């Protein structure tokens, strides 16, 4: 396999090494290892990456290579086995439950299958983004602060769903649902946006629209966006930086222009599909 040889190579130019300029990197991951259960194989074999405070970073790689596990380790929907994840200066891996909650509300997440609460309205789903901030009685009585409600209306206008405010989430199309998912994540006022295969359940045209929206959020709100995606064309088009993963390791890290067929072979294996 060419993967091993390539993984050992120095990263292409233009990539900051982990640890350098710590203040400039809101998210630094060091030597992250994950295995599901003792004795099971390592899904992540020591990932080290650092991320700039803005821009879209795409993580590409074949299914089952640990992309999703990696992104879920960052907000600890998956518990890392070892390593360090430093977010805004704090190590997420060692946080207690309460602290984790406070960090999570600064990290928005967009899911492959949207993960909206199906029986709630679009507005209720968007306001779910404020659940880290509002007490339970407000959520129970749907008495969100007016400022939150205003922001939710603005966000729904931004994602083009201003006319769907009171519709139930299960009445929307896939693309519309993902827009609600993005609005919910942005509603958190996040310092980081994670997107786990946000376009994999969508048709090509809608996929582009969703990626455009994510790029716009990154641009206009100065939020770094970390997106798992297996569509290389989409990744090249929208990301300022591409991280290629294969079998639990980073095998490419650099700008889209530097991504050659040779790298893609290393990431995905084989070559027939490239022609």
């Amino acid at each position, binding site marked *: 396999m060419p993967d091993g040889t390539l993984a050992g190579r120095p990263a292409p130019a233009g990539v900051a090494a982990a640890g350098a300029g710590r203040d400039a990197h809101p998210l630094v991951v060091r030597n992250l290892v994950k295995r599901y259960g003792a004795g099971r194989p390592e899904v992540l074999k020591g990932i080290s990456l650092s991320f700039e405070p803005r821009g879209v970073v795409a993580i590409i790689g074949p299914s089952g290579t640990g992309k999703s596990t990696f992104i879920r380790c960052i907000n600890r929907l998956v518990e890392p086995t070892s390593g360090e994840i430093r977010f805004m200066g704090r190590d997420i891996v060692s946080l207690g439950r309460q602290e984790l909650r406070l960090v999570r*509300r600064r990290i928005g997440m967009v899911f492959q*299958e949207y993960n909206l609460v199906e029986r*709630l309205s679009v507005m209720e789903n968007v306001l*779910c983004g404020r659940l*880290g901030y509002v007490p*339970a009685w407000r959520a129970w009585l749907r008495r969100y602060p007016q400022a939150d409600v205003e922001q939710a209306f603005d966000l729904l206008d931004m994602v083009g769903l201003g006319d769907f405010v009171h519709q139930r989430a299960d009445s929307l199309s896939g693309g519309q649902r993902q827009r609600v998912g993005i609005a919910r994540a942005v509603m958190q006022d996040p310092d980081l946006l994670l997107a786990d295969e946000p376009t994999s359940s969508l048709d090509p045209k809608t996929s582009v629209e969703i990626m455009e929206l994510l790029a716009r959020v990154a641009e206009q709100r100065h939020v770094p966006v970390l997106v798992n995606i297996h569509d290389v064309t989409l990744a090249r088009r929208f990301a300022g930086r591409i991280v290629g993963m294969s079998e639990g390791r980073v095998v490419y890290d650099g700008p889209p222009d530097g991504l050659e067929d040779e790298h893609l072979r290393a990431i995905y294996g084989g070559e027939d599909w490239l022609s």
Partner: protein
Amino acid sequence: MTAASAGGDRRAFRANWPARAGLLALVLYVLYAGQILDLSWDRFVFGLDQGGRFLSRLVPPDFTRWSLLLDGLLESLQIAIIATVLGVAVSLPVGLCAARNLMPWWVSTPVRAFIAVCRSFHPIIVAIVFVKAIGFGALAGILALVVASIGFVAKLFAEAIEEISMKQVEAVRATGASFANVVTMGVLPQVLARFIGFATYQLDSNLRNSTMVGIVGGGGIGGTLFAAFQRFDYDFLCAILIAIIALIMLGELLATRLRAIFQ
């Protein structure tokens, strides 16, 4: 194949001998048990004769003591509604604590055991226990039906929660929501409609049972019913039975309406 050429006596289905043996054993046991209990044709004919005389004394129903009847009915209705409201209110947290996908095992296991105990006894037995423990009257009946409600609603509610989509819960959790908020916005919306369904079914069930707890002293129309039986007051008995049927049908109508509101 030789069987095919021999004239087509191949079998499409295999004979299930254990099932046949089991069925035979069941039929034999029913005959045996009937023998033991002295169920004979003569006994049946005697019963029919008795039943005919009983039926003729039921009609016409006697509604002259309607105020007694109404008092009993209203008390039954009150018992049913109070017991349902209390039972359903308690079932919400109890069911939540019994859901194994939300709670650690050391919470869910004892709560599930508690629900199992609530379910073990027929409401009439629980009613007898409460009548003995706290005395005659509606309170004993209410408590008995509260126990029955918890046994039913909390169990089904817990099962409904165990079937929810954890993806939706995960998304709410990822926003940094507290556990209370995760339950409020991530779990309850998924099960609310079914919970309302269970609650209205329980209201229906409690209405029927509330007419019965009176037989053992738990309040309601049951006491009047039992007294009418004891005194061979069959025409009044018939009036009571008709009134109960009306009450149950009214309850069912109400329950259907409630379910429709919450779809």
